[in-house]
């Protein structure tokens, strides 16, 4: 298996060979080295979406979209229905292949060549709109199941959590505000708590980029506030991309807002800048 894997690695065309990247490369003094499987953010940008076009039966869901997410940034993406928000997520996570354009994670990883699992492994976590947690499992078990670890059947049979893993789970439970209820079954959680638990499950994977789709839909105001807190606290360590309709919520968390319209970026900037943009007003208010 080992040999096969390393052969497979050598055949990959989306990365520089190990020996080139790390080793005796004549120009190594002039370039930084890239470790395989690690995201290279030496230029400060973690996610590059460049000139991406996706069309379904002639309809351009994404039209020459370019977007850059900085490492550790919290970015909100808004836009009217059909603006291409979900399609953009699909392209980043490898669910949809772009017709043209490039999507890179860091400098070196080409996401358009990976499938969904590989993208997830590479460090992009996606939270879908509808919460899907395991209803019969406790909060703790849900997080345990989502943990980054060996996942084949035989290992699972004999796995015992190390204290490190245990404390990692507790850390995440603290983060998502469910620390006091580790053994409650997920089906008894409120809608908001389920959303947090799911974010927690994503965090167990230690993603560098978190894509969050409409996190506060259907939440109470208190829950919204706590979600805002949670997402803000995640920024810095992770880059968080939030797609949301709720303007109050977006205002409460975002430093930078990107407005999508008809598959491309209409405006980008702070919330105030964006709201005072004439084109944005036109799109949203039709005036």
């Amino acid at each position, binding site marked *: 298996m080992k040999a096969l894997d390393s052969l497979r690695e050598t055949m990959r065309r989306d990365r520089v060979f190990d020996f080139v990247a790390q080793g005796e490369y004549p120009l190594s003094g002039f370039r930084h080295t890239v470790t395989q499987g690690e995201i290279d953010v030496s230029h400060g940008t973690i996610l590059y979406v460049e000139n991406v076009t996706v069309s379904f039966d002639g309809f351009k869901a994404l039209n020459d979209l370019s977007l850059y997410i900085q490492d550790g940034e919290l970015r909100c993406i808004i836009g009217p229905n059909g603006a291409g928000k979900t399609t953009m997520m699909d392209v980043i996570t490898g669910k949809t292949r772009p017709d043209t354009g490039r999507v890179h994670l860091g400098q070196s990883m080409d996401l358009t060549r990976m499938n*969904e*699992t590989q993208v*997830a*492994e590479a460090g992009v976590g996606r939270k879908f709109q509808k919460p*899907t*947690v*395991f*209803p*019969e*499992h*406790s909060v*703790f*078990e849900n997080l*345990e*199941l*989502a943990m980054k670890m060996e*996942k*084949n*059947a035989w290992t*699972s*049979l*004999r*796995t015992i*959590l190390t204290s490190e893993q*245990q404390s990692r789970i507790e850390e995440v439970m603290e983060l998502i505000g469910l620390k006091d209820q*580790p*053994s*409650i*079954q997920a089906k*008894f959680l409120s809608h908001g708590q389920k959303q947090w638990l799911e974010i927690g*499950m994503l965090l167990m994977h230690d993603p560098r980029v978190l894509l969050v789709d409409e996190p506060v839909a259907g939440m109470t105001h208190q829950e919204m506030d706590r979600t805002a807190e949670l997402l803000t606290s995640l920024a810095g360590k992770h880059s968080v991309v939030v797609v949301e309709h709720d303007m109050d919520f977006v205002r409460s968390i975002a430093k930078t807002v990107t407005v999508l319209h008809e598959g491309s970026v209409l405006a980008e900037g702070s919330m105030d800048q964006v709201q005072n943009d004439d084109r944005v007003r036109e799109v949203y208010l039709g005036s």
Partner: protein
Amino acid sequence: MLSKILFKNLLKDDKGGDRMLTVLLAVLVLVPVLNLAVPESSVFHLSTYTVTLLGKYLTFALLAIALDLVWGYCGILSLGHGAFFALGGYAMGMYLMRQIGDRGVYGNAELPDFMVFLNWSELPWYWSGFDMFWFAMVMVAVVPGVLAFIFGWLAFRSRVTGVYLSIITQALTYALMLAFFRNEMGFGGNNGLTDFKDLLGFDLQSDVTRIVLFSISGLTLLLAYLLSRYIVNSKFGRVIVAIRDAEDRARFIGYNVEQYKLWIFVLSAVLAGIAGALYVPQVGIINPGEFSPLNSIELAIWVAIGGRGTLYGAVIGAILVNYAKTYFTGALPEVWLFALGGLFVFVTLFLPRGLVGVFDKRRKSSQGAQA
């Protein structure tokens, strides 16, 4: 209680299982005493007939655990588990046939009676080795296991789930039944294998052998229960429950769903095969009727009535329903099928978690899966 002391960690959160095993251990001690040591004239004497009946129930309970593992925990409703049970039974039956030797009706030392009757001159190749006990015992596990592996590999890889899987498992057991009914298959046709004399040299009709078979059935049930409990307590167990509740999500997180399903299915089939092998020497016959789809459906009813996803519920369901069956088919034979059907409807409508669900206020907010 008693079993709790013995298997502390395994049964930590399993009160029902603990009670069930305590009762089982008590029965395993009491029954031999009441049968062998208490004189026949006493009211406390247990007839050998009853012992055999109880032994049969225990093998059914083992079969029910096997189904509960795949159905209750992994959501795979197999309606063909009777096939694995019967295959295990046939493997044991073949050994017992070879043990008869020249004591058969035709007195042929090499060939079982039905082969002599069919004018066969030599044993088919697949009968070779079955004169050795160890070989037969290996086959008891291997034959159902390999069949389950091939079947499961094909089915799960093609993502056949839910009712479609149930239907093809029915087809599997039905196909095997038709095949085993044929004389040229070499398994005794519709008469099956019977007229067994002894097992490892012990007379199958003697009281002591019957008690020993009963005890082995009970101990096997106990071990299988502990093994199953170990599995469902492990992370493997949590993964298969996750697969049951949200298969796509489990796949998305990175679990190889097919692999998990396949292994639990194979293990379940092996347990069913062992149950069959214990069943055959106690009832003295194995015939293609055991493959009938109806048997497998009845098995699902035992588990549903007892309570899915608890393991001990399956044991209780199997024993209660079979006791009721013995009683009704003796007292009011025409009522039995109606009673079984009625029971199933009742349980489905009013007790979705089965009989054990009634007594068991299960882990609502205080479940202690972590330390």
